[in-house]
């Protein structure tokens, strides 16, 4: 039986005071740094754009985790595959942005199909789902390399290569565009969840599937929708990454890893946390790479994962995660 005593008011996602204060301090630090040094500002802006991409993919991971308590190890490869699809569309004559939107639709269908065909049969077992997503990782990687080969390919730059100058700081149109697109897609998704009936249904299905079923929510379809939306986010991340990494089968692999770190940092259950975590990791990886000599390129990944491990040890629910109640 549920506890009937009056619950504490903090059942919400924890945007607790120390965390908010920490984030405010970080913002102040960054602002001051940007004002003082133009290199700092450039690295920060580049880091913001990069972080927006990590955040998008992290958001996709969190979407799926919230609904089904599994991590989709194939999220990056799915994003990569849909980017190749966009590439193919541009080869067939579509403009970048037309291809972009068509690809989003294709990605949605792709996500739904993957959930229904591959995940649903095994969703009762965490290990089985992990292994199926790993199998998908390998399968998708093989399919893409088979169809398009492993060599680098290039798409037309979506934002052009112009740069803007602000004093002594150089900002690329690319970075700004990536930031805007990422922010926009996050806002649209948030609006979907907050204000639409389907969004409410998805939230209900993720929170309490049994109760949701009783009010008429088709829980299984909500899960499939969740995967579809996650795939759309992944496609956005992929198409925003392509200008800097170019098109190759391994393009999303490091990004997936940073996205894991971002998702954990933000709290696996918190969409806001994933986005913020991504930005934080993007910015700080850049700054550390710039200013800490020991932190050479080979150590980027271990550092990101050191962050992940420290977070897991100190505050396992991440910055914004809810306190997990362990059912006995």
């Amino acid at each position, binding site marked *: 039986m549920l506890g*009937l005593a009056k619950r*504490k008011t903090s*059942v919400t996602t924890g945007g607790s005071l120390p965390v908010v204060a920490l984030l405010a301090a970080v913002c102040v630090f960054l602002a001051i740094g940007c004002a003082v040094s133009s290199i700092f500002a450039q690295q920060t802006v580049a880091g913001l754009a990069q972080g927006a991409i990590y955040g998008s993919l992290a958001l996709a991971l969190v979407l799926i985790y919230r609904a089904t308590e599994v991590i989709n190890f194939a999220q990056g490869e799915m994003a990569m595959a849909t980017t190749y699809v966009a590439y193919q569309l541009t080869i067939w004559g579509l403009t970048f942005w037309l291809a972009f939107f068509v690809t989003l639709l294709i990605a949605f269908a792709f996500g739904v199909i993957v959930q229904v065909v591959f995940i649903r049969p095994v969703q009762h077992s965490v290990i089985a789902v992990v292994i199926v997503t790993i199998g998908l990782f390998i399968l998708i990687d093989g399919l893409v390399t088979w169809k398009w080969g492993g060599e680098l390919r290039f798409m037309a730059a979506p934002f052009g290569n112009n740069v803007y100058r602000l004093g002594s700081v150089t900002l690329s149109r690319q970075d700004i565009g990536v930031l805007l697109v990422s922010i926009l897609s996050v806002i649209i998704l948030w609006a979907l969840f907050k204000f639409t009936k389907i969004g409410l249904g998805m939230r209900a299905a993720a929170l309490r599937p*049994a*109760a949701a*079923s*009783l*009010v*008429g929510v088709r829980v299984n379809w909500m899960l499939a929708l969740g995967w579809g939306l996650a795939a759309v986010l992944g496609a956005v991340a992929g198409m925003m990454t392509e200008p800097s990494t170019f098109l190759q089968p391994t393009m999303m692999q490091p990004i997936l890893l940073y996205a894991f770190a971002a998702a954990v940092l933000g709290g696996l259950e918190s969409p806001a946390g994933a986005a913020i975590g991504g930005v934080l990791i993007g910015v700080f990886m850049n700054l550390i790479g710039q200013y800490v000599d020991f932190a050479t390129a080979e150590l980027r990944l271990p550092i990101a994962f050191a962050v992940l491990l420290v977070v897991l040890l100190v505050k396992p629910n991440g910055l914004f995660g809810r306190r997990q109640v362990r059912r006995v």
Partner: protein
Amino acid sequence: MAELLALENVTARYGPVQALHGVSLTVAEGEIAALLGANGAGKTTTLRAVSGTVRRDGEIRFAGSGLSRIGPDSTARLGIAHVPEGRGTFAELTVWENLRLGAYTRRGALKDDFARVQTYFPWIDERRHQQAGTLSGGEQQMLALARAFMQRPRLLLLDEPSLGLAPLLVTEIFRIIKELNEHEGLTVLVVEQNAHIALQLAQNAFVLEVGRIALAGPSSELERHESIRRSYLGY
């Protein structure tokens, strides 16, 4: 009065454990029926069998036609609202979002329904943005009723609405249930351990023992029945 719900020889099991051994009962349209029995008798399982939450065999007829073995989301669409043990409240969502979820299967504008909910539960409007998990036990029960009402169902299945509530609140809840039944024509099948108040509310009652109906009949008769008085009414 026409029959709205009929169970014929319904059996149900949880894995290897048989919970219902052939339950048969009918609920007429517009009436309140009570399902009584001790812990473990199978009352909750019976409700679950109707809403499709548990797999079952046997025949169930709803509004004249047979209810095939569909899941709870489909039975909700057919007009059956099930308020389960624990109330099924979405604690993390707001009061208003809970109500909206109640109306998930409905199409069209909900303004009328919100207005009607207001008449039965006047306190709801000013608390619409409060998180449902922070409501008191009695308020959560009322929210559950309101949520079920938003669904505009033909049949309301209630599982132990009095559980854990102070007697004053229990009276209040049951008063509201009676109003919903009389003014909105809502048919109710209520499971209760509190036999006394259930028999006062309902026109007909069934007593479950170890997965079978042991006694059935009008409440007035059951109230006077020897074994009922001894086992459930305490005198």
